[in-house]
């Protein structure tokens, strides 16, 4: 076969008629490249390459690190496709051969080369797609797996993602078949996670726990801290209204400025209990915190929490409290004994007492910890309150928490019923329980009994329950052989002496680790109803299809464009669309990396331990995207908008006046403000920095790749990175300038660096800066950070945020840079479309996808490539509809 091709190749070299050879080449591609082992490039192309390209791009010269010669006799593989696509693009754009070369090909010669190459690549790809499908079969990633099990078992807070190994990223996402490998560790983790999730779903008691309303006073909740550490004050103060209850100071020491041991808890004066509140002057930092420990969620369920509290003002001598002056944002967390905290919600307390209500899912055993997040988060040994003013400081009074719940619509839960239907339950002592008892046996707080299902007809029950479970778990109709093999496992387990319940759990565990559950369906060609429902749901919900989608898939109506369109709207309007928003942004804009760097303690003291800021940054990006989706905002909005989705903390961070409170909402921006769009969001500016310094190169590459879809080749080996210097003597631009005089560097850097230059006006957390901060030279700035530590940093060199966008013009700062980008919004839309295509189909965007991408752009031109319009067009496009 290889010999034949080589002979054929020789024949081709001496065929002079271009038209003939083109046809011949086509035959060759179809007939011989079918197995993907034949040379990708045919004779007329080789002739062109010989005459116009290989002089520089051969094995000896390797100009631009490109050795085309080495690809001449290779078949198409991933790398060869990339290279030939690049050759196609450069030649068709007239960039190659270089303009300065005297012997350039005639226009028709180039055109015929480009066409030949295009046909060869497309034909190869179409052929492969016909045989294998456009995307490779892939397993669920760990986000998808978690959502699938959560939806199946009706428990939206099951934690599974973190117990599975991290998924490998390809083409920017955790969705691509080539990268979603499986190892024995992965399988072991599936078994463990599935078993755990299933056992958590079994009803923990016979009767539903009573749904009641109970109030927990803050003063009853144990102590706010154990003792003072060192001379500093760590205070909690009892108040009624805004009156400090001096007689309740447990130390009995009227001099509150002395080493004070104010107990929170155990003391209250009869008659005052219902009025009393406890003032915190600090945000939570072990060991000072408010925690409603007397409440522990009896079962995993939905609860309604009401918290009563208000802001106060504390005098500098801690002897007097008065009415608060500001809105105080409060975060509430669910807490376990081992201090694992889970963020539940944010709300505000005001100077006037108010009751704030939230509905939250809690896990059995969790308790509630509220935190006044704006207050100083002190840490030993010494601290200073940055919010302290001449006449005092803000504090927050926590009065009580009321709990309604658990709010159950049925008992046992829907999840339990899926596993065990209406089979009777009985309570057995833990000691006598079967071997699969929960590990809670050792925990003194844990239950002393457990619930066991009792089947009077195990064979029939197993058959009925397993069929129901597999039908719901699989996203297609299971075949009988699959059902039988799960049932055989259940029977084997029962024969081995396991209880009915344990045998069923083993069977269900197998279902959740089986290829039918783990892998996407689809055969080469168009997706059928269930395949399309699956792809659509994992695209727009990052979750499996619900009953509605399944029904439309089953009768085939989902395949009708109108129905499909209506479903896209339904999915996007559902709260589950936030799963898509979060999962997509985690990878597209690297939001999953939001915590991977921390602002340097010396240079950026004000950001230390400020989780309210860090969390708000992430939320801003997610809610902005959701807002775009809701309003069908166009591609240009990704660069700039006249509003931002922010809260009080972000407004403060961005220098936007008159915004208070924890809630993020769209706020109109002052005219000509630098914010608006994604480029100037703190999250983006944080994930592109390292916590200490910013690099125009790294930020530039990021913008080019993530926003403009322009892939930057890695720097040649042996080139060291240009590092910023925090000593204040030079700026990164000056360092970079030393290199930009070298043409070999400049060829790429003139494209990469300008976006990064424009973003130099923003520090590592995205705040505006006119000067770089330094630990060496500069004007000293002193103060106290959010963590209560005193600091001094220096303000050094001024920021220069100017640059030139090739082919567009110069800009002086980020505003000008945004204007330059806005000249070509379609470029942004194209990139978005391609990102969505990878995310939605789990396959890279290929050469042969270009017509489909162009069609999507044409179809959305009227809406200026609105986000929702793009998604509609994409879902109806060929690449989305085929495997």
């Amino acid at each position: 076969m290889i010999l034949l091709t080589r002979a054929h190749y020789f024949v081709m070299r001496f065929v002079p008629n271009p038209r003939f050879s083109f046809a011949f080449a086509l035959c060759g591609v179809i007939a011989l490249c079918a197995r993907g082992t034949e040379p990708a490039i045919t004779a007329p192309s080789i002739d062109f390459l010989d005459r116009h390209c290989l002089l520089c791009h051969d094995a000896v010269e390797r100009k631009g690190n490109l050795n085309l010669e080495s690809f001449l006799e290779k078949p198409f593989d991933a790398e060869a496709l990339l290279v030939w696509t690049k050759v196609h693009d450069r030649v068709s754009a007239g960039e190659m051969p270089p303009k300065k070369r005297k012997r350039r090909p005639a226009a028709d010669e180039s055109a015929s080369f480009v066409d030949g190459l295009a046909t060869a690549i497309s034909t190869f790809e179409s052929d492969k797609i016909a045989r294998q499908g456009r995307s490779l079969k892939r397993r669920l990633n760990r986000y998808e797996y978690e959502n699938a099990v959560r939806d199946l078992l009706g428990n939206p807070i099951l934690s599974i993602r973190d117990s599975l190994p991290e998924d490998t990223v390809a083409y920017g996402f955790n969705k691509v078949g080539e990268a979603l490998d499986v190892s024995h560790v992965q399988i072991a983790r599936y078994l463990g996670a599935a078993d755990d999730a299933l056992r958590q779903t079994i009803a923990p008691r016979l009767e539903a726990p009573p749904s009641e309303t109970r109030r927990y006073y803050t003063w009853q909740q144990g102590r706010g801290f154990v003792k003072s550490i060192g001379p500093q004050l760590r205070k909690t103060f009892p108040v009624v209204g805004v009156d400090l209850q001096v007689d309740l100071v447990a130390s009995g020491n009227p001099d509150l400025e002395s080493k004070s041991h104010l107990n929170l808890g155990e003391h209250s004066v009869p008659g005052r209990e219902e009025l009393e509140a406890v003032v915190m002057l600090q945000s939570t930092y072990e060991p000072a915190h408010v925690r409603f420990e007397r409440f522990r969620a009896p079962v995993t369920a939905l609860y309604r929490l009401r918290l009563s509290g208000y802001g106060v003002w504390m005098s500098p001598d801690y002897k007097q409290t008065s009415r608060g002056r500001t809105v105080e944002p409060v975060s509430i967390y669910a807490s376990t004994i081992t201090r694992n905290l889970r963020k539940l919600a944010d709300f505000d307390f005001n100077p006037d007492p108010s009751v704030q209500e939230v509905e939250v899912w809690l896990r059995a055993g969790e308790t509630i910890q509220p935190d006044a997040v704006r207050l100083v988060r002190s840490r030993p040994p010494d601290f200073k309150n940055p919010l302290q003013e001449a006449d005092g400081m803000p504090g927050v009074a926590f009065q009580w928490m009321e709990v309604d719940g658990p709010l159950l619509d049925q008992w046992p839960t829907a999840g339990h019923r899926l596993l065990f239907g209406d089979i009777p339950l009985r309570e057995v002592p833990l000691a006598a329980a079967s071997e699969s008892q929960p590990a809670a046996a050792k925990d003194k707080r844990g239950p002393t009994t457990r619930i066991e299902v009792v089947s009077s007809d195990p064979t029939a029950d197993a058959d009925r329950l397993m069929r129901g479970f597999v039908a719901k778990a699989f996203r297609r109709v299971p075949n009988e052989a699959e059902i039988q093999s799960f049932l055989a496992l259940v029977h084997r387990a029962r024969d081995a002496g396991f209880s009915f319940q344990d045998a069923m759990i083993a069977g269900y565990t197998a279902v959740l680790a089986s290829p039918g559950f783990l892998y996407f369906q689809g055969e080469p060609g168009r997706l059928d109803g269930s395949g399309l429902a699956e792809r659509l749901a994992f695209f727009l919900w990052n979750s499996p299809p619900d009953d509605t989608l399944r029904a439309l898939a089953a009768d085939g109506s989902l395949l009708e464009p109108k129905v499909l369109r209506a479903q896209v709207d339904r999915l996007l309007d559902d709260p589950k669309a936030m799963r898509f928003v979060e999962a997509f942004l985690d990878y597209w804009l690297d939001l999953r990396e939001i915590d991977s760097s921390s602002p340097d303690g010396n240079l950026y003291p004000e950001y230390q331990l400020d989780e309210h800021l860090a969390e708000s940054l992430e939320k801003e990006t997610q809610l902005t995207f959701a807002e775009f989706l809701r309003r069908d905002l166009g591609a240009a909005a990704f660069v700039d908008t006249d509003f931002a989705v922010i809260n009080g903390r972000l407004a403060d961070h961005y220098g936007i006046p008159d915004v208070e409170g924890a809630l993020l909402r769209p706020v109109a921006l002052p005219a000509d403000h630098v914010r608006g769009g994604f480029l100037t969001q703190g999250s983006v500016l944080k994930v592109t920095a390292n916590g200490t310094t910013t690099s125009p190169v790294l930020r530039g590459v990021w913008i080019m790749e993530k926003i403009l879809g322009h892939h930057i080749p890695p720097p040649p080996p042996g080139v060291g990175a240009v590092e910023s210097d925090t000593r204040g003597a030079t700026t990164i631009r000056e360092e970079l300038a030393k290199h930009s005089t070298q043409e070999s560097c400049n060829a790429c850097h003139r494209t990469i660096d300008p976006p990064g230059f424009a973003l130099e006006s923003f520090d590592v957390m995205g705040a505006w800066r006119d000067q770089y901060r330094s630990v060496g030279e500069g004007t000293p700035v002193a103060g106290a950070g959010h963590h209560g530590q005193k600091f001094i940093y220096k303000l050094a060199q001024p920021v220069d945020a100017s640059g030139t966008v090739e082919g567009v013009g110069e800009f002086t700062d980020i505003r000008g840079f945004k204007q330059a980008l806005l000249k070509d919004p379609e470029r942004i839309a194209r990139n978005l479309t391609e990102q969505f295509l990878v995310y939605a189909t789990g396959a890279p965007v290929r050469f042969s996808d270009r017509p489909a991408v162009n069609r999507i752009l044409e179809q959305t031109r009227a809406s200026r490539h609105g986000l929702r319009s793009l998604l509609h067009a994409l879902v109806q496009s060929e690449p989305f509809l085929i495997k």
Partner: protein
Amino acid sequence: MNFSHAPFVSTGATLSRRSFLRNAGIALSLPLLESMSPVFARNASRMAAALDGKPRRMLAICNNLGLLPEHFFPKTAGADYELSEYLQMLAPHRRDFTVFSGVSHPNVDGGHPADNCFLTAAPHPSGGSFRNTISLDQYMAEEVGTHTRFPSLTLGVNVQQGVRSLSWTQSGVMIPCEESAADVFRRLFFTGTAEETALQVRKLELGQSILDTVAGQARALQRTLPDADRDRIEQYFTSVRELEQRMAASKEWEHKPKPKVTAPVPLDPESPVAYMEKVRLMYDLARVAFETDSTRVITLLLDSVNSPAIAVDGSPVSDGYHNLSHHGKSEDKLSQLRKIDEWHMRLLGDLVGDLKTTREDGDTLLDRSMVLYGSNLGNAHSHVNTNMPTILAGGGFRHGQHLAFDHEHNYPLPNLFVSMLQRMSIETDRFASATGTMRGLQIA
């Protein structure tokens, strides 16, 4: 077309050279089938990892009140560093350990709660949305655990149960510390009841049945798939089989007789005052567990924070251990702390000495056992989590040096964990916030 100035010669040369290569057949390369590469690459890496063949072990010890830094850290660096006062107590083993300074876990702060992150390096343990991550020992156990009867042991002295441990699962669940040396000893060396053994075997068999079921379905599914997809399911199938082999290996342990040891069952002291005696018993237990290859991975948390006024050299110190650590520069408290620290060093020296005199094949047990000793606190008095005191003894590294890093800008300690993982023949260059392997630490 203008070709009068074309560099004809050069073009010709290009052609002829290429033709030559083609005719010589050098340029011809067999295409590697897509399907072969992942499976082959994986197996190859596994084999490379197992080449050495010698069992490798780790004992990680954290004393969560640390050591007085002024007496612990050497003043000079390098191979010819001068032993510090404390390290003098380890002088006979100078060639067998490396001492580190200027190292810490990036972004692990918050004082005491950082002990739970000693082996995980999960950031901000006091933070508002903290969640722990997998600890070094559990990461190791996942790879090497099936070689021994017990994948790992999690031990502790005076531990505040439910709050502290060094061992954490991937999903951040605490593995509680075992505090009775006697109980652990019995489990290591006394055969369980027939029922216990049978139950364990049945559980593993159930696991194997589950794997058989899903493997069978993978095979059935493969028949209908195009080549490329079939290869993906093949990878799933192979992984299921590998896990099954591991379960089979675990099952075999249940039928094998436990090792016989001559040492008596340790006698657990009842009072937490006998802290040092408890530490000694745990060190002995760790050694004998390694010697009998009962496990290769052990963690030991010395919960000094939760300890009362402890007995040192037979007589109790005046103040609770934790209170002493807030010495406020009191001479009296400092001298008592010093006494405690010195006993820690002495016991550690004994452990290293014992491991050195025990032999396994041609090596000493120490050569094959990494002993990591350290603390989450760089200075208990000020609660800082930087400049963590750290010693690594044994394990077949080139020791006898003080690796000194910047005290202001610490070097990431998780890099040491990566070196230790690699020493365990686990192929990875990442762990927690590590940026690579430990600079300056070489395999012997």
